[in-house]
């Protein structure tokens, strides 16, 4: 996600992008920074302590999030952290606690709340257009990112497909259908490829499912559907794309981790970052808060536990 956020920051007029530091900087991101005349190094502490900063954007591998959030908060900086906030609920809570203690704001990149179709469906559901929501199905597919960036294939670093991809849909489902009572999941791995299915029983009775894959040779796509006594709403990124390129070899063998690419008039990644930075500057808060981010991580943790034990799990109990 570093490249995506670097491009947003370079385009965001009111923001002065001071520079980039990370334990590992990809050649592509280094080149982008060099082109803009910005420093890019592995000296994170140096950048955080350089003075003159208001906020920091964290877009590193997931296992580094808790430590980096803590360091940024310790330096008195507001933090935008890419999702997931941590690998488990304990880590995510610690990150929130560090920011609270330092008196800085924490925003997390739950960008699906900024994808127009997902936001519209949630609005329509909240307006009662389908009656009391009964069932939701979320699908999120791509090739294996671990083939391009090996850390994704290491469950200790990424949390696997359930945490890395699923946390998007868990956050959206919590936002749309409310808290979850029970989690049941199945998953399977083949090398860097993984698939998982997570079924959630929400308080009040609604049932949702999240279908996840890092084995899709057709590349990245998502779909969502919600139904109730009053009707059905759905969206599929494949049939609603306004632009696409079909390469001779999509998905597997892709030179980059597959991330939707925004255009100036339609870029959810830009919008979420602009909202967060605006909040840091005294504007209204973004669409999700830090507690929402913790809840999504907790749900992902419960789903991983359920997938490994093949038993049904109560979220929030996984860390106990």
């Amino acid at each position: 996600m570093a490249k995506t956020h670097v491009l947003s920051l370079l385009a965001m007029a009111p923001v002065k992008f001071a520079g980039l530091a990370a334990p590992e900087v990809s050649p592509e991101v280094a080149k982008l920074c060099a082109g803009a005349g910005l420093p890019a190094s592995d000296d994170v502490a140096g950048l955080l302590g350089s003075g003159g900063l208001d906020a920091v954007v964290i877009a590193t591998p997931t296992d580094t999030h808790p430590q980096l959030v803590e360091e940024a908060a310790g330096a008195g900086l507001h933090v935008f952290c890419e999702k997931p906030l941590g690998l488990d609920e304990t880590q995510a809570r610690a990150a929130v606690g560090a920011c609270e203690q330092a008196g800085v704001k924490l925003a997390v990149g739950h960008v699906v709340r900024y994808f127009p179709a997902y936001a519209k469906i949630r609005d329509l559901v909240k307006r009662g257009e389908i009656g009391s929501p009964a069932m939701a199905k979320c699908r999120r597919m791509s090739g294996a990112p671990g083939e391009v960036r090996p850390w994704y294939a290491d469950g200790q670093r990424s949390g696997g497909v359930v945490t890395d991809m699923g946390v998007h849909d868990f956050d959206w489902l919590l936002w749309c259908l409310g808290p979850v009572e029970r989690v049941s999941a199945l998953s399977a791995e083949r090398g860097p490829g993984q698939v998982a299915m997570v079924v959630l029983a929400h308080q009040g009775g609604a049932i949702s499912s999240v279908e996840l894959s890092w084995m899709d040779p057709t590349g990245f796509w998502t779909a969502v559907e919600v139904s109730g006594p009053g009707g059905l709403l759905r969206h599929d990124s494949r049939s609603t794309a306004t632009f696409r390129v079909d390469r001779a070899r999509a998905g597997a063998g892709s030179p980059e981790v597959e991330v939707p690419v925004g255009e100036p008039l339609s870029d959810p990644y830009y919008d979420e970052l602009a909202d967060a930075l605006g909040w840091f500057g005294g504007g209204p808060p973004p669409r999700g808060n830090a507690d929402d981010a913790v809840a999504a991580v907790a749900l992902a943790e419960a789903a991983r536990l359920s997938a490994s034990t093949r038993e049904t799990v109560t979220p929030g109990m996984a860390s106990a």
Partner: protein
Amino acid sequence: MSRLPVAMVGAGHVHAPGYLRWLSASPDVDLVGVYDPDPARASELSRATGAPVLSSVEACVSLARAAVVCPEPTRQLALAEALAGAGLALLVEKPLGVSPSESGALLALSDKVPLSVALPVRYHPGATGLRRAALDGSLGDAVAVWATNRNRFPGGWFADLSLAGGGCLLDHVVHVADLVGWIWGSRWSSVRAEAGVLHHPDLPAEDTAMVLAECSNGMIVTVDPSMSRPDGMPGALDLTMRVWGDRGVATVDIFAERVEGFDGAGRFRQELVGADMDAAMLGDWVSSMTRDLPPPVPASEASAATWLAFAAQEAVASHSTVRPV
């Protein structure tokens, strides 16, 4: 070859009219008549298809060598037992019984007479194509199957538990469960499920469900059998499967083949086209029974598929994982 004398015994199931139309038109079948516990229904079907009305099971037994048993699910076992007692070959509507004990009783009948079960999706090109891809290695090892078999609420006896015997788990899990068993030869090793009466709050049994299951060969399978499609939605009935293999992914959409159109007022319409799987199933059954071949879809396989529905019902009630005894 002489025509196979066939009776339809019990015609309350939604599939009965279609089966009866095929039987009445087939040159290989002598349709001796239709019996239903509700004489008015038998008369109505008789008017529609020309099949004579039969007034009792005994009348069916005296005229037919084989019977299609297609009543509401809770009426299935008694009719099948009476016919098997008289030695008729049977084609029984799915699911195989509405409870584990009824399923066992129907399975026991298959020791006495040739008993095939109406699981027509096996004959659909989407299913035969998947089976070929699974067997010829083009998918590699199958890892997971994500399936839906959804519909609108069909109305009628589905709202009457004394006739339906269950909700959407009983009605719609069995097709996908049978395809998985038929294609991969696997058994079920664990089942979890969530379900509720959520889309049609007045119904007596679940209309919304998700099933998670593991197979003996390590495959993981999920089925959504919900009656979640709104009334009037085009393409409300679906049967889809996404099969993740370590060398590729297969997608099946049994009702995908259609023509879409709009009239001058912008109203949408669609017509399903393509293969007639019911005709293929009935043709295979008639051909097999005429030649004294084994039943094409044996009760043992339908019993394994129906077990997944019973296990899911139990998992819903207990909020825990159900495993075969």
